[in-house]
């Protein structure tokens, strides 16, 4: 790596997301690489929240990266880059869940079985069980929960990402919690 390239890398590391994204959108490959490098962990993190399994999350994260490569040209800097990225990840996550839901039932049944068997899944962890329940929620509720609880975002930020009002976010969270309570209630306890 030449000194100049190293210098560019260093600059990229300092540049803020918006600037990098703008350069990437204009065709700056290095800027794009830096951007993806910087946000991969974040993408993977959300993907894992959505799908709950390492292999699936890795596939989804990669899918998001691929989409990002094609979508970055359309980034206009209107919203914060992370907001935009969140929306992209959520969309990809929704598609992935949809594919799972629609795909071969046997495969998913087997996957569920495999998941039960795998060590990676900590079955006794009540938090993980709750996340499992979150994953069964309708899209909007699940996304709101993922962002509010998983990412620790405020309702205003979540509203931006989801493109709805804060009230709607609050309502999704409320509905989700109501539903979760019902889902997590031990059987027979009415």
């Amino acid at each position, binding site marked *: 790596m030449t000194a100049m390239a190293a210098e560019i890398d260093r600059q990229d590391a300092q540049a803020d997301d918006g600037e990098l994204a703008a350069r990437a959108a204009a*065709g700056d*490959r290095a800027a*794009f*690489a830096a951007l*993806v*490098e910087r946000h*991969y962990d974040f993408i*993977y*993190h959300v993907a894992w*929240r959505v799908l709950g399994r*390492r*292999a699936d999350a*890795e*596939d989804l*994260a*990669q899918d998001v*990266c*691929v*989409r*990002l*490569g*094609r*979508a*970055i*040209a*359309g*980034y*206009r800097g209107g919203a914060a880059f992370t907001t*935009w990225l969140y*929306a992209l990840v959520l*969309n990809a996550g*929704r*598609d992935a*869940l949809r*594919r799972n839901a*629609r*795909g071969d039932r046997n495969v998913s049944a087997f996957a569920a079985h495999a998941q039960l068997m795998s060590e990676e899944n900590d079955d006794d*962890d*009540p*938090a993980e069980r*709750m*996340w499992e329940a979150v994953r*069964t929620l*309708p*899209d*909007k509720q699940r996304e709101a*929960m993922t962002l*509010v*609880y*998983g990412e*620790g975002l*405020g309702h205003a930020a979540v509203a931006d990402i989801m493109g709805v009002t804060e*009230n*709607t976010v*609050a*309502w999704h969270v*409320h509905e989700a*919690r*109501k539903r*979760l309570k019902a889902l997590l209630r031990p059987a027979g306890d009415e």
Partner: protein
Amino acid sequence: MSERDEFDMLRSRPAPKPRNDARKEALAAALRSYDEKFSPTAQGTAGEVRLTDRARKLWRGLMNRKLVATPAVAGLLVLPLAGYAAWQFMDEDMFGLRTETQVQGEPVRPSEAAEEQEAGRGVVLNSEPALPQAPADQLRETARPAPAAPTGMAAPRLQRGPLGAESKMVAPSLAPAPSMDMALPRTESRDRFATFDTNPVRAALEDPVSTFSIDVDTASYAFARRSLKEGFLPQADTVRVEEFINYFPYDWQGPASADEPFKANVTVMPSPWNTGTKLLHIGIKGYDVPATTRPAANLVFLIDTSGSMNAPDKLPLLKSAFRMLVNGMAGSDTISIVTYAGSAGTVLEPTKASDKQKIFDALDRLEAGGSTAGAAGIEEAYRLAEKSFVAGGVNRVMLATDGDFNVGQTSDDALERMVEEKRGKGVFLSVFGFGRGNYNDRMMQVLAQNGNGTAAYIDTLAEAEKTLVQEATATLFPIAKDVKIQVEFNPQRIAEYRLIGYETRALNREDFNNDRVDAGEIGSGHTVTAIYEITPKGSPAQQIDDLRYGNAQVNNPDGIAGADEYAFVKIRYKQPDADTSKLITTPVTAANEIGAFDDASNDVRFSVAVAGFGQKLRKTDQLAGFGYDRIMEIATAARDADPYGYRAEFLSLVRLASALDGGR
């Protein structure tokens, strides 16, 4: 973020770190797609570094779904298609949880469609359009900061699937844009309807008495209409045939004076759908209270302003509807408004209807937000209703909501009990349902039935106008309550009978004379219609065999008075403020009989067509051989004046249902 609760543990579980390999691969993939985007020539290298198998498979799946493929389907599918497409456009929830109320089936996957084509098996005709899921995806991707080529939505793409069937696949002309009166659908429907079985055929000999409560609700028809306009056949359980029949105004002959609150008109005629059976048609018309003698009204609007009401077909429609209602009220009537969302609140203290501007202003200020605290709201509404109670007048809480009462300690039972108790004190409850997706029909029915009120479903402004303006007097001014009907069939003449509809209103035989048993109310000028399908003795249409030792069980032995009567209709009712019931009786004899169905009056024939339609949607066995085309014929011939176009609309619904149901 400050939410602290039992869900906090969700925060406590960190996501694991990504593996380095996965990370590298993802970065490489990202750059590849970036390169493809910015320098298309780089595509040649795409095969060198491979995605994982699974990712590739997923990606292909994604591409496949963009492919719009359908068998060459007859024009019949255009409507379901339009509905389906609109549905896809409007909702991203597509494959969220499916509940039992969801109508749409799993779409045929492209590969299956292709096989279908390959085999040359031709047209697949059923109510589940064979469509892949393209529109939602494409729409989203074009709506978002848009990756990929901005290909036109309707542009056909070729499938790269293994079947090589691409050339045979055609893109349907995408989505005739949803028209204005096509209500916009939701995918994940959480509408709740109580299920019930269709009334069975009963043998008059064993079970000569049929008892039921009157029902003037119309919600089921409006709900089914919405469903049909969206392109789905309504679920059988959402169809209550009596509510279909009673949706339409009929010109039954009414009583002459208020002393006798209503009059029953009985017609016996051959059944149009079965040879060998007849229809016993009972048309009841309530006394129409002249405007000058109407009692004063004290209305409390209890309005759901929870976040979910924030949709064009909910709060804004509701405001317009109530505005119309207020316009029709007398100046001395009292109106209050209570909202419930998060916490219940009084928006408008009891105000005279003459002060219209104040009421309109209060309505205009309503905004949707927060969750639903139904129980608290209803308590507050009752408090206001009692505060400005009009002795001898109409005291009514008018509840408008899209869902249920879900916040608060109150269980459904407790709520029902409260509604019942307030009814005892003279405050009635009417329920107006709005929107769709979370509609709790069961709860609405229960509340309205216990509150001596009507449950109506309002999906359009026209429906609001029908319910709250044209039928306002019927909705608001009861002329009789706890109206029960008991029909005793004469086993000497009638072998079998079947009550059409009223399944949810069935009463025990002994309840008829028990004044403590609640039943429906009839408003000023209301019409209520009940139809029995009866099988005369000796008819070949008889379904239940005669008992060998049957005569021993005849509880209406030969030689009694009225042995040649078909049946005896008894109606019990109470005056709105009375506690003891009165009885009206009408024998049904040959004098009520009409030789040919076509000789019956227009209104009778139209109501029979509606009954046929409702039963058809419920897939009632007796109508298996009776097509939508026959319903159309009867209804068209009996359309009559139809000043508000209700019957014309009915005809269009029959056409829709016929198309959706494969023309059966």
